[in-house]
């Protein structure tokens, strides 16, 4: 059924259709509307056989999900930003214990300075926690990915994060096709745990593992992710077969045939990138793009297949490793090992900064001319930066940088799209 609804609502409906049994809710912008929606459905009796638990922190939220999942229930929670960091220990733990929890990340920047707007720093901070991380490009895909995520998680016995851009997707009203319960049931079988707390067949879950076996445990976790590289496309294909829609998969190529320049990015910005590519293709530029849906496992082979014939790759990422550079770029470079190809890292949209078509077009043209530095920050206000750097050279007590910049900028609204 097609509905014009908010992204969060679309996700909530997808979760509800997935017959979750335990939902843990703790508010944090911008994911809050999802759990609010679910809470409403449970309270209204629309979502039955489901425990909706208001917890006291994100750490508890995921911990409750861990307990529920280990006890054989399909468990779900959602968070963002600081919340994800606050539950970080549990994030690693859920993966280590192999519990198929599905968690939505309404992607948002991490403070300080505190910032509620979108970028990918939060998800990226947990990229090595052992979870599968799927990035949605649209609200429709966000909806679809959640349904796929439960099946993927439960087949592999691994937790899955579905990452969607905060505000840009979570708060956007778009038309989405909400599948029927029958369709979802046909795709997603009931949860059959690989291990479960069962009084009839007791086991101890969560042993202490020493040097004699820890490496093997970690390798097996990696191996599961490698298996996911096979399973994700299969489930995506099956989804298409049953729902008639392309959703998910490892990567999605756009006009890469014969492309000399290929732009790689994650999440909703792909839409904007594709529009710019359309314009540039129209103008005769051999450019295409690749959207990475599965960031973990990282699709090295699939990317290599697409990128190996290009001349350059521009990785546009909403996050970066401070002191190093691009995070996504790292993986992309890895996929191109041994292939001589120019690579550009572009950090963009941090803390909700708008990524405009104009800026992108300029960026891609500069890249095409190989006039781009290896690492750039899109639309960085160089004036502010240099002023602040200058101030710091002669003032010891400079005060907080963020406040100083805000003072200099005068208004905030003019800087945010």
């Amino acid at each position: 059924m097609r509905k014009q609804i908010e992204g969060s609502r679309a996700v909530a409906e997808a979760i509800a259709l997935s017959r979750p049994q335990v939902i843990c809710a703790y508010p944090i912008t911008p994911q809050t509307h999802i759990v609010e929606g679910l809470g409403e459905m449970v309270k209204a009796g629309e979502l039955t056989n489901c425990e909706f638990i208001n917890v006291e922190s994100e750490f508890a939220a995921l911990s409750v999900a861990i307990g529920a999942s280990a006890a054989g229930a399909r468990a779900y929670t959602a968070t963002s930003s600081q919340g994800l960091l606050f539950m970080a220990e549990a994030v690693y733990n859920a993966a280590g214990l192999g519990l198929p929890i599905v968690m939505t990340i309404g992607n948002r920047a991490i403070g300080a300075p505190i910032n509620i707007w979108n970028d990918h720093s939060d998800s990226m901070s947990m990229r090595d926690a052992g979870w599968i991380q799927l990035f949605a490009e649209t609200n429709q895909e966000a909806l679809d990915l959640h349904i796929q995520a439960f099946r993927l998680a439960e087949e592999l016995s691994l937790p899955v994060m579905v990452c969607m851009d905060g505000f840009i997707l979570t708060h956007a009203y778009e038309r989405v096709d909400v599948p029927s319960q029958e369709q979802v049931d046909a795709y997603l079988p009931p949860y059959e745990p690989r291990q479960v707390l069962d009084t009839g067949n007791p086991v101890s879950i969560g042993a202490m593992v020493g040097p004699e076996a820890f490496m093997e445990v970690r390798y097996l976790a990696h191996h599961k992710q490698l298996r996911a590289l096979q399973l994700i496309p299969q489930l995506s294909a099956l989804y298409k077969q049953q729902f008639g829609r392309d959703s998910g998969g490892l990567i999605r190529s756009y006009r890469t045939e014969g492309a000399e320049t290929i732009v790689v990015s994650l999440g909703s910005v792909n839409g904007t990138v594709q529009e710019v590519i359309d314009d540039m293709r129209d103008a005769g530029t051999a450019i295409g793009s690749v959207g990475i849906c599965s960031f973990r496992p990282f699709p090295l082979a699939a990317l290599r297949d697409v990128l190996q014939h290009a001349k350059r790759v521009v990785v546009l990422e909403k996050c970066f490793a401070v002191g190093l550079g691009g995070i996504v770029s790292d993986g992309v470079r890895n996929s191109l090992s041994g292939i001589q190809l120019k690579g550009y890292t572009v950090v963009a949209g941090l803390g909700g900064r708008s990524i405009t078509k104009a800026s992108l077009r300029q960026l891609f043209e500069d890249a095409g001319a190989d006039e781009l530095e290896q690492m750039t920050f899109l639309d960085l206000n160089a004036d502010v930066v240099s002023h602040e750097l200058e101030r710091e050279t002669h003032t010891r007590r400079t005060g907080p940088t963020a406040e100083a910049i805000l003072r200099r900028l005068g208004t905030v609204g003019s800087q945010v799209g």
Partner: protein
Amino acid sequence: MELQTVKFYQTGTFTVGNRLLAEDERSVQANTERTNSLNSGHRACQGCGEALGARYAIDAAMRATNNQIIAVNATGCLEVFSTPYPETSWQIPWIHSLFGNAAAVASGVVAAMRVTGKTDIRVIAQGGDGGTTDIGFGCLSGMFERNDDVLYLCYDNEAYMNTGVQRSSATPPAARTATTPAIGPDPGNVAGTGKNVPLIAMAHNIPYVATASVANLRDLEFKVTKAMGIHGARYIHIHVPCPLGWGSAPADTIRIARLAVESGLFPLFEAEHGEVTGRTPIRQRVPVDEYLKLQKRFAHLFGKEPDTARIAQVQATADRNIARFGLLGD
């Protein structure tokens, strides 16, 4: 509270078993069919009070629920010594997640049981004092506040033993730990600090809160059994001496726990819905010195010149407990 209506003078009410009692009147621990939930082969130190307390409590809960127990364990000694790969000592379904989230994980297990219709299966969360009164306190309070159907057992050995005896908020005044060394003008832990989690638990108005001791098995089993007969959030705080951390003889574990009770330093009481409803009277009152002297962590109080002022402070705490909870009986 009435544990046993008939007094048996030879074997008393206080021994583990009693050949003169009917089988169903004996303690769970007297029974050869007891679960031994925590099995032999665990790696707890000699004379570990926590290993004992855990088996006492879980076995009692197993009997009370016809063996329908799932346990969630916080990180700590109990977890480490019971489940080092490739050997587990647990005979029951058991999960360890993290140091600070046992109560929350247990809430999740309960939710799963409820939603899958297995409400006969009961859930216990357990942790040491660090995992309960400090790092796990947020999750504990949350579980209480939601009145989740979890029995939380805190095995209180009054410091972070697993990491090498550091102070926790359950460490008593004057005790030496690795982070409150017995040096300087005010050796050992600072007086007037720490928190009383049983009282805090009561402030949540949960259906049942109790304290228990490995020195009084019948009392402990009574409370665990009672707790398993109640639904909602329940909390039992069990005093478990640690020979390693307290610097006491392994053989003295129960003796020391008993002296803690008999001196009034560890009051045994029960509370329902926030009100104290029962207390276990002291049988043979002793001065706190008898308790303190058996432990090296208090050795600095008994140097060449006994630190009478601080001993008096500790005695005052005991006296206050006795008065507050009416521990001297009728």
